């Protein structure tokens, strides 16, 4: 068995310590949690936060929040790299990130590797503090969501991925076979972009849930941006569609197109041009600065960003691409 200690233990908490925190800091009452985007980031994403992003790869990524983090020049964030793609790339480019635990990062899926993320890691500006697999990551969140200290997993065993993770190996008391135990992971804050949410934070997502069920329950603070803010009554009509119940949520912000340039399933498609533009500019540090000068610091807010990338016309096209896609027939 490889030694299981090269990876830094990040996000783990004694379950009793987290229970006490939850008891004191999370209200169970239905209260209006709407606030401006800037306030949500100011209050819930301080410098040094352990941050996780909802969605997956280029899907349902909370980009409006990410651009706001860059705008507020947050620093020293540790990002949980659970298939972090455009999200972490922008945050690294913005100078917000100092550490990453990696399941998948510094890549853009089919679109290739990330020049910006790779430069940061290879130059030592951003430190990779541990490795693990996608399944192991979501199960770290599941353990936290359940309030148990760890989750047994049968992958990673025998590999450098395991020895560079924070997992330990135990002999299963029944079969006698070795099994990996991954420690619970409680992010300080998790950010989500959803299809609909009420003022209290009851959030519903269409399509696959990916690992957002587990992540929303693992994070201490949850910030939700939503395509549409709906009446509580709308939620009450089909409460079994609620993926994130209100008592988990700390802030609610209505941000149409809040996932741009990533895909909002059944709503709008990727903006390949915008992604390609970033990948092009981010070939150099100067290009990265130009990008932020134009798309973040050159605009007042996310609405300004949306105008920059082509406004109504472009967004309408992205809707069309998704509409044309049989998935929405």
């Amino acid at each position: 068995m490889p030694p299981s200690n090269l990876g830094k233990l990040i996000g783990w908490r004694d379950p009793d310590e987290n229970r006490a925190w939850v008891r004191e800091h999370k209200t169970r009452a239905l209260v209006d949690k709407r606030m401006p985007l800037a306030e949500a980031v100011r209050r819930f994403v301080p410098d040094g936060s352990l941050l996780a992003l909802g969605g997956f790869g280029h899907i349902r990524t909370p980009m409006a929040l990410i651009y706001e983090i860059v705008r507020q020049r947050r620093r020293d964030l540790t990002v949980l790299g659970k298939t972090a793609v455009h999200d972490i790339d922008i945050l690294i480019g913005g100078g917000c990130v100092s550490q990453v635990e990696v399941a998948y990062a510094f890549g853009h899926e089919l679109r290739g590797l990330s020049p910006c993320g790779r430069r940061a890691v290879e130059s030592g500006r951003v430190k990779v503090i541990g490795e693990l697999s996608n399944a192991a990551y979501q199960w770290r969140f599941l353990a936290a969501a359940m309030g148990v200290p760890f989750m047994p997993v049968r992958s990673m065993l025998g590999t450098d991925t395991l020895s560079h993770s924070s997992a330990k190996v135990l002999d299963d008391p029944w079969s006698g076979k070795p099994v990996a135990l991954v420690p619970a992971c409680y992010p300080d804050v998790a950010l989500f972009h959803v299809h609909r949410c009420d003022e209290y934070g009851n959030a519903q997502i269409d399509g696959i849930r990916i690992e957002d069920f587990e992540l929303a329950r693992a994070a201490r603070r949850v910030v939700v941006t939503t395509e549409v803010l709906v009446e509580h009554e709308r939620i009450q009509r089909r409460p079994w569609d609620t993926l994130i119940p209100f008592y988990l949520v700390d802030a609610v912000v209505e941000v149409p197109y809040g996932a741009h340039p990533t895909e909002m399933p059944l709503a709008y498609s990727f903006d390949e041009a915008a992604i390609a533009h970033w990948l092009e500019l981010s070939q150099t540090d100067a290009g990265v600065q130009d990008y932020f000068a134009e798309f973040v610091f050159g605009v007042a807010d996310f609405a300004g960003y949306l105008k920059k990338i082509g406004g109504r016309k472009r967004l309408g096209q992205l809707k069309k691409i998704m509409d044309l896609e049989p998935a929405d027939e």
Partner: protein
Amino acid sequence: MSKSPAYTLTELLACAAAGLLEDGRSVFVGTGFPILAAMLAQRTHAPGLLIVFEAGGIGPQVPVLPISVGDARTYYRASAASSMHDVMSAAQAGYIDYGFLGGAAMDPYGNVDTTVIGDWAHPTVRLPGSGGANDVGSFCWRTIYVLRKQSPRTFVPKLDFLTTPGYLDGPGARERAGLPADGGPYRVITQLGIYGFDEASKRLKLLSLHPGATVAQVREASGFEILIPTRVEVTPEPTARQLRFLREIDPQGLVIGK
């Protein structure tokens, strides 16, 4: 006192139980008495009380008293209707403040038996078992017990079977066993009075007597010694307002009729 309206024992207990639930907190309820008490609390001093059902109902606006822990009334106009995994996980993670339980027998440390009377392998009476009770008593921050029939047969020095943990064998025992810290039985409500637990010994202690009940009756109706402080409150009688709400919630008297 004499000016207060007529009320049944169940109504008195429901008002007493409701009074224990704080606003802005969450409560794990089963069918029957617990949901009645929780709904009363919502209509009076705790409008922001979150009601959660074991089978997945989260924050319903319960229309009529549910008969089963999973029936459609338990998630009527709810914020979420998910699963036992979701709700039990939330409880284990510290999101559920209060739990309501009953039992066939209780010992001085608030441990409870709902499994067997007699020997486990050859029971005199087989009871339903833990169900979710052990989880509620393990996970919730404060567990409230309602035992309508306090007697030497229900308040026993030693249980035939310890189904659900109270304070086990005393201070620190829950933590030593690995149960979540700082939880445990909070109050015990019987036909005679309301009990808490002594900080130092974690043993049952009388807090208040119901109108008309005496310390002597409390002592007689127990198989173990109950701590009696020098000062004992009297359980407040139901107000006309509380009674009106209770009868709105349970018009057919399914529960308050008992």
